[in-house]
């Protein structure tokens, strides 16, 4: 067999928790130039980690993500104007303490990266960006906000970012903070102590399709390990496990959350990616708007659909998609067995004519073409809870 990617020896970047992951026996991979845990055999491996997040709670080190703060200087609203210019969602709608999903676009309406925009203060924003695109994103933000009266700070290396995800995440984190987590709604954040560290950003966000939090703590190894271990200890009664990028990928895929260079890239536009609801054309001008206005969402040549293979085989990233007559029509952007659904699922770009639910297409898996069916997405959606208070009593 081919040996699974082990971490290359040259110059991989490490998060402050790298030594701890290795001590835990994690399998490490090169992810966008970062030496990251892909799964922890000690947690029971990828499928066990995935199920822990769906049914209980898991913890992820996501310190490789980047953080860019944009705050105002002299002119009131200088930072807001800058964010509005580089981000497609409407940041003027954000309250202090609120976050939203958005993307930075090239003039042609394709993706620089997707981002979570947090409004920290009156004219103060935090953009959380992807690891693999960090340098590119920071350069992009600096270049394109230079005409605005604002200060851009790259805080990427200042923080260790931990994601605590799963239906029991709130109960675990509540033990470690004085912030009232039940009052924090999905895609809102608060500041509070975490393990005695004052004034930490605690956001009800994540990349798993499950309830959960992302916390930002000082990026030194001693503090990072102390907080990680405290979360593990607090989560023991709920069966918490460390989770790697493998489970992170299957969790986000089931929830149809985009991954850069897969569902979104510099050659895919917002309409094709189906991210219309995060793109506020009416908010005023922003980079990419003119091209998107011209492209119009009703005339896309390809669109992102969910597939489920109905013959034996797994449709994976990059596999070609064909129609029943044998003509090549598209490509799989992400594909994997779904641990929650016990089916083989995939996201693929196909012409709109093939996007209807129930349409049969073929995916080329090595030398064979296997049948797959267009299915509704997201593949998995968590059940809505009656109230945040009820969560702990279930």
């Amino acid at each position: 067999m081919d040996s699974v990617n082990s971490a290359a020896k040259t110059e991989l970047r490490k998060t402050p928790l790298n030594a701890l992951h290795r001590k835990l026996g994690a399998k490490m991979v090169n992810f966008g130039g970062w030496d990251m845990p892909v799964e922890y055999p000690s947690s029971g491996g990828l499928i066990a980690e995935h199920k822990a997040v769906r049914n209980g709670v898991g913890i992820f080190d996501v310190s490789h993500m980047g953080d860019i703060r944009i705050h105002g200087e002299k002119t009131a609203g200088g930072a807001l104007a800058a964010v509005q210019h580089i981000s497609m969602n409407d940041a003027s709608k954000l309250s202090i303490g609120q976050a939203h999903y958005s993307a930075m676009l090239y003039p042609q309406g394709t993706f620089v990266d997707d981002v979570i925009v947090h409004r920290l203060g009156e004219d103060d924003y935090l953009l959380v960006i992807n690891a693999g695109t960090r340098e590119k994103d920071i350069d992009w933000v600096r270049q394109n906000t230079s005409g605005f009266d604002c200060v851009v700070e790259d805080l990427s290396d200042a923080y260790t970012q931990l994601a605590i995800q799963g239906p029991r995440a709130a109960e675990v984190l509540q033990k470690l903070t004085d912030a009232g987590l039940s009052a924090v709604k999905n895609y809102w954040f608060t500041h509070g102590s975490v393990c005695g560290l004052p004034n930490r950003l605690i956001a009800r966000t994540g990349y798993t399709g499950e309830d959960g939090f992302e916390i930002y703590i000082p990026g030194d190894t001693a503090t990072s390990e102390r907080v990680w271990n405290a979360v593990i200890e607090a989560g023991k009664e709920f069966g918490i496990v460390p989770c790697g990028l493998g489970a992170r990928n299957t969790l986000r895929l089931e929830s149809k959350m985009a991954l850069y260079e897969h569902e979104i890239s510099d050659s895919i536009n917002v309409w094709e990616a189906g991210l219309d609801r995060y793109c506020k054309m009416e908010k005023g001008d922003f980079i990419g708007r003119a091209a998107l206005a011209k492209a119009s969402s009703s005339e896309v040549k390809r669109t992102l659909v969910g597939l489920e293979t109905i013959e034996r085989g797994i449709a994976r990233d990059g596999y070609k998609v064909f129609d029943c007559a044998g003509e090549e029509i598209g490509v799989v952007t992400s594909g994997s067995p779904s641990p929650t659904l016990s089916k083989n699922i995939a996201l693929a770009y196909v012409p709109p004519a093939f996007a209807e639910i129930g349409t049969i297409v073929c995916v080329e898996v090595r030398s064979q073409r296997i049948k797959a069916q267009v299915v509704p997405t997201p593949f998995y959606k968590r059940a809505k809870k009656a109230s945040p208070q009820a969560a702990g009593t279930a």
Partner: protein
Amino acid sequence: MAYPANFRYTKEHEWVNVEGGVATIGITDYAQSELGDVVFVELPKVGAKLETGRSFGNIESVKAVSEIYAPAAGEVSATNDELTKTPELLNSDPHGKGWMVKVKLANAAEINSLMDAAAYEAFIAEKGKEASA
């Protein structure tokens, strides 16, 4: 997990157990542990001809596809169809119930060039050192 002393091993982490000119082939415990949860196995048909060093099947974990290479040339005389229904046998019993194919060897002497258990254990110990370097 112990590596059976009567098996031979390849650098691609397959094992071969020869009994009466027929080689049973599988993947090693090290291989299954590197792969993680196996969810799909694709095997050749009975009668297929294997060529030394050529891919003859695939093992898929949740996250990756890995090819399986023939440790020696020969003709497939049996395949482990249990693996179609329960691919996780490759994780739970790689040297036993997780066997993949039986092959009638073209040249039984070919096996002699493969590693014995002691050499293989030294080989994977070295790999482990590289990975944690």
